[in-house]
């Protein structure tokens, strides 16, 4: 879709999904009852997704990506703030409406093998959500299962319908997970590191497939990854996460060409393209490791590792989002 068409649709439709001041904390207890503190996995996240766009959430493991995904799906109750889908806050939905919501949002998780029940064949895996959502006619279910398999290029469907997950390769398993996510004809797909467990050789293929399905059906795609080197090809906007927060967001080329946040800059500087000259020098890597989310540092969470830290400010006050270039938001005091 070209940019003007997309923008026109955006302004007409408004955001499909938004996160407002979203917090998901997990209480940590010792021996099952002693309260030790809270893991602030998602800690004040705000964003809006427009209908039909593909966005990527990028961050290192433990920064809260999966917790965010699960909160967006309504699988975790936010500690504070809300998720709004098509104008309604998830917290206000009754049981029937929640079920309807889950039919509108498909989920693709990281480990395809863990996501597929080992005792079900592909047919049953694909029929199941249809049964749950009231498609009584068996022939119709079968028809839709076949369509979904064609869609993920597992064709002819007859070769796959009676297979069990262990009989499929990792890439094929992930295609089945995607087919299942599509079968209720959702408006949106949330994919949590959909290729990180797969061999490098099949990753691009699966990402391409997701992206094609997304553009073809005008779906909204929220794609979670720790791999910045592939995002350019599979997302239009990027959100960079660090320690439970979004620290930078921008359109993909803007972000890759003009990273503003020192953390994003460090991430990009650490990525190697296959160049023999890489072996000639050391890479610059910020010292230390991401903080514990049990007791995150005061002020900017990146400050203990940041070589541009402004003493008295960065270590005391939380940086808000600053608009550093058009549409480019950066939570960093350098841009005050």
């Amino acid at each position, binding site marked *: 879709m070209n940019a003007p068409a997309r923008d026109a649709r955006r302004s007409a439709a408004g955001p499909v999904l938004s996160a407002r001041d979203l917090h998901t904390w997990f209480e940590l207890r010792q021996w099952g009852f002693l309260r030790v503190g809270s893991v602030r996995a998602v800690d004040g996240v705000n964003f809006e997704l427009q209908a039909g766009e593909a966005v990527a959430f990028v961050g290192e*493991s433990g920064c809260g990506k999966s917790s965010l995904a699960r909160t967006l799906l309504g699988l975790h109750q936010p500690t504070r703030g809300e998720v709004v889908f098509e104008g309604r806050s998830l917290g206000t939905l009754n049981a029937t409406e929640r079920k309807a919501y889950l039919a509108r949002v498909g989920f693709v998780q990281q480990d395809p093998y863990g996501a597929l029940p080992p005792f079900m064949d592909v047919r049953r895996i694909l029929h199941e959500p249809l049964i749950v959502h009231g498609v009584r006619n068996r022939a119709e279910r079968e028809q839709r299962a076949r369509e979904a398999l064609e869609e993920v290029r597992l064709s002819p469907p007859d070769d796959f319908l009676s297979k069990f997950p262990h009989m499929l390769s990792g890439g094929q398993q992930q295609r089945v997970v995607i087919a299942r996510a599509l079968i209720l004809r959702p408006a949106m797909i949330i994919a949590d590191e959909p290729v990180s467990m797969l061999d490098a*050789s099949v990753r*691009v293929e699966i990402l*391409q497939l997701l992206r094609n399905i997304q553009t073809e059906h005008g779906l909204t795609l929220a794609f979670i990854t720790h791999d910045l080197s592939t995002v350019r090809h599979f997302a239009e906007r990027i959100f960079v996460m660090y320690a439970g927060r979004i620290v930078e967001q921008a359109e993909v080329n803007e972000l890759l060409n003009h990273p503003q946040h020192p953390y994003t800059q460090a991430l990009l500087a650490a990525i*190697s*393209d296959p160049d023999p000259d*890489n072996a000639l020098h050391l890479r610059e890597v910020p010292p230390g*490791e991401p903080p514990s989310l049990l007791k995150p540092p005061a002020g900017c969470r990146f400050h203990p590792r940041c070589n541009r830290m402004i003493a008295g400010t960065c270590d005391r006050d939380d940086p808000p989002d600053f608009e550093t270039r058009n549409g480019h938001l950066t939570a960093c005091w350098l841009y005050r």
Partner: protein
Amino acid sequence: MAGEPLLRVEDLRLHYRSGNGVVRALDGVSFDVRRNEALVVLGESGCGKSTLAKALMRLLPRNVQHFSGSLLVDGVETMDYPEERFRREVRWVRISMVMQAAMNALNPVIRVGEQVAEPLRVHRGWSARRARERTAEVFGLVGISADFLQRYPFELSGGMRQRAVLAMALVTEPDLVIMDEPTSALDVLTQAGIMNALKRIKQELGTSFILITHDVSTSSEIAERVALMYAGQLVEFADARDFFREPAHPYSKLLMASVPRLHQKETPVHIPGQPPNLLNPPEGCRFAERCPSRFDRCDRDPETFRIGERRTVRCWLHAPGARP
């Protein structure tokens, strides 16, 4: 011995017995590693990379059906060493290894420092005190603070555990360290930190490395030479500079085009098809089914041809005077 590479491997083969027949996981591999050199072994999963590592260390599982070839250390053949002598003179002494997923295999109830010191205590019979001092030194080398000696594995992040198993491989001062997928499960910054540590160690100690990985980009952080494997065989062996800039084997070319690059506009292209089953690999070129340049000769197993001084390619296209 002057002029001899540190390690030379000729026609190495390792086949496994399985319920369905013989798996020809490593099927005639030859290469060498020089002193203070970093060789990267690339290949997609299942092509025999871990099998190669096990063969070099002679850490063989029970179901080995066939093991042959030549393994020269400093020009001296070690294949005919009995196990006892190989253990005394080669394994963990000249050549050590960080196994795939080793960082997750640390013993959870033993302090990290003790585990890293173990090779010194067991193989060298060092006193606890002497071993502890040496371990602290190696911790410094791999970038872990000495405070961590007293910690348990669960108290360490993934990156720190990976550094700890690297320390374990280095503690006996081997000439060559084999690392099997050392950074594949780690985040980019952690990965970059570990690659920095490897570069530093190589420079300071003069150690040679064989880095085994399917990650082409990360491998370029240290590679001086590259060996690309496909279906149990080496298809190309070249200087890293030549391999990354001008890959020669058809598979090498497709592989390089499939690597995502940060600042590249074109979408990376995946390689269609799948590698053959090693239970019953095809008679001719094992890459033929996926090869866009296949021609009539490819029904026969290709020989390995030399291109220039420093590159070999197992492909008929590179036969002298070949014209498809």
